[in-house]
């Protein structure tokens, strides 16, 4: 084989190797290796390894569980991923989107035998956008999307 043909063969091989590596990256799942937040189910399963650590827990604010202490900013509510419920306490400013049935990410130190006291709360909204007239339909769809993004 001449030199040019040899070079071309090597180039094709390189492209194949690089492409293969990239494809294997797409298919190798890093689930659980590094996530922005844990779901209530996961945190309750990994009580030992995560206790005493700073964690983020994501889910939906369960309807009918939000309790506001009158006169203060203190609130209590349950976070759910559709399977497990997880109680959270918080004292501070809330993002505007925070309400029952809405996605939320709470951050704090996880002590298994105590209530989870959040040091900060982020709202996580779904990718659904709908006009105000359709809000009933929208709320139902948004709930589904939020729970789906917990999987």
């Amino acid at each position, binding site marked *: 084989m001449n030199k040019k043909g040899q070079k071309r063969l090597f180039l094709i091989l*390189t492209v194949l*190797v*690089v492409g293969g*590596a990239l494809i*294997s*990256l797409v298919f*190798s799942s890093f689930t659980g*290796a*590094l996530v922005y937040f844990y779901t209530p189910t996961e945190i309750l399963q990994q009580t030992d390894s995560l206790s005493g650590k700073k964690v983020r827990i994501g889910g939906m604010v369960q309807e009918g569980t939000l309790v506001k202490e009158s006169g203060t900013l203190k609130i209590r509510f349950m976070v759910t991923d559709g399977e497990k419920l997880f109680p959270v306490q918080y004292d501070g400013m809330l993002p505007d989107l925070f309400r029952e049935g809405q996605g939320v990410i709470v951050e704090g130190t996880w002590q298994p035998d105590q209530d989870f006291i959040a040091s900060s709360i982020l709202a996580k909204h779904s990718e659904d956008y709908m006009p105000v007239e359709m809000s009933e339909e929208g709320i139902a769809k948004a709930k589904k999307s939020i729970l789906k993004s917990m999987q």
Partner: protein
Amino acid sequence: MLKAVYRIAWKDVVGDLRRRATLSSMLFFSIAVLVVFQAAFEPDRQAATKLLPGLLWATVLFTSLMGLGRVFQAEEENGAFEGLMLASVPRGIIFLGKWLGNLLLTLLVQAMILPLTLILFNVDAWHLIPHIFGVLILGILGLTGLGVLLAAMTQAARSRETLLALLLLPLVAPLLIAGVQATAGVMVPDGQPGPWIRLLLIFDTVYLALAPWGFGWLVEE
């Protein structure tokens, strides 16, 4: 061919060891990093174990940035860069030689820094040294591969060192994350470094396959 790779690498390593230029500055620099870390965090033994992966990779990054700045320095000082490129050897081979030289130097420095870090931070992880060093080698393979290519790219540039850092940092971000996580994974008994080691391998494959070509395209004709 292989002989040429070996000759280029050997010339760089021996030349550097004789002048002790890169090696000693990399060593002193990493000691400075360790001292700053100690002063900033004052970790107890347990905290130091947690900090160690990040600390190791921070020194790897800083020292290799320093080493990479000098990969083509000798050629540039005596104006031999163009000559090196005009040599009858294929440029992929020149790249491999340069890369091997830089890899050996970086590994040599890390082999000295790793025990030093364990001593200075009082971390009892002596039995884990082979594992940790294995992860370091995996990361440094890809890091130096990309780094030598970027060093060739910025060789003629103004404010070369800053530019090198600007180009290298975003591109190796996933490698550093994977390296830190894999090191943390091998240091705890029930850790799972598997996915991160796989990511390091993917990174090494991609860069070591691509970099010789990139080097060739840089200096063609």
